[in-house]
């Protein structure tokens, strides 16, 4: 069984984009997809998996948001060097700081703001992000 592949299970209850995202993330974290490795074009992966292009585009967008990959016109989507990546903790703290400032401006205390985050999580259909 080769490792440079992704699989989706329509019965898993997890959104297809999330399944692909998690698998690519694991391949990058484990070094199977080394820095500089090129991911297939969105169209190829979408067609091979029987998904809409937008679904795979979302995966690449989310991977790019956490700096795991970068997209350029000439090279396509490639895995970034580890130094260029921001950890999830860093990204989460940055977003939390923005939200905390907004909640503070509204005159809301920390418990109420945290409660709003918990409610938002509960309303989400897809599973939450892993820590890291």
């Amino acid at each position, binding site marked *: 069984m080769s490792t440079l592949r992704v699989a989706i299970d329509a019965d898993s209850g997890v959104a297809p984009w999330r399944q692909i995202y998690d698998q690519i993330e694991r391949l990058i974290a484990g070094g199977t997809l080394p820095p500089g490795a090129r991911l*297939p074009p969105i169209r190829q992966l979408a067609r091979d998996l029987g998904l809409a292009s937008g679904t795979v585009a979302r995966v690449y967008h989310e991977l790019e948001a956490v700096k795991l990959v970068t997209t350029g016109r000439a090279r396509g989507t490639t895995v970034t060097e580890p130094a260029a990546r921001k950890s999830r903790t860093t990204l989460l703290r940055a977003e939390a700081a923005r939200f905390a400032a907004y909640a503070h401006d509204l005159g809301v205390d920390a418990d109420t703001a945290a409660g709003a985050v918990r409610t938002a999580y509960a309303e989400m259909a897809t599973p939450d992000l892993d820590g890291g």
Partner: protein
Amino acid sequence: MSWDTMVPVALVLGLFGLVILVLLWPGERQGRRLLRRWGVDHPSDGDITDAVRYLKRRRFWYPWLFFLLPALGGILGLSKDDSTTAWSVAWTVLIGGLLGEVLALRPARGEHRQASLVRRRVVDLVPAWALVLLGIATAGGVLRYGIGHRWVALGLTVACALVAVVIVALAVERPAAGDPTVDLVLRTRSARVATGLAIAVPSSLPELQMSFPKALVFVLSLVALLAVVGPVRRTAATVG
């Protein structure tokens, strides 16, 4: 070729095609053999099913094409040149391959789907040297038949190259099916067979006067055909 001779020829070729279909109709053994020749040493039952389906999608058309192509050539007046008869086998395999790839264009279904994360390009399926040979063989055929005013042969040479190019493009672009390794092997086989045939076709037309250079080109094109279509066991290892 007149109607009187065309119909018997078509019937004989059709019967020949039917015999070939019965003899070559793929089963589990043929599917397993195909995969092993291309480097999939331990195919699963699902892999073999995919390989057998791949073969059936092509071979199903052979008897019909053996029957139809000469008849079609006669209707279009192409059979005055002996090109259509001489190239029936190549055209049958080419069009069978084309129809097989078109049938494989259906989107991937099933609850469990896999895809390779390796970028797929034309040169991943057909080596660059084979593509160069295809260009040289086609250009040579066009030049040769153009100078000789053999327009049917010229048209068939160009059409053959175009069909091969379409098959290669479909082999790159079509959706994946089954295991990514088996999928790549079957794509590669389609693209290489089409390219190899298109390389060999321009020089395979029988000549009344076979000079040494023509015979040499004929032999070289057959060698190229065998080199291009031969199984490449390392293909299976490139999925990653």
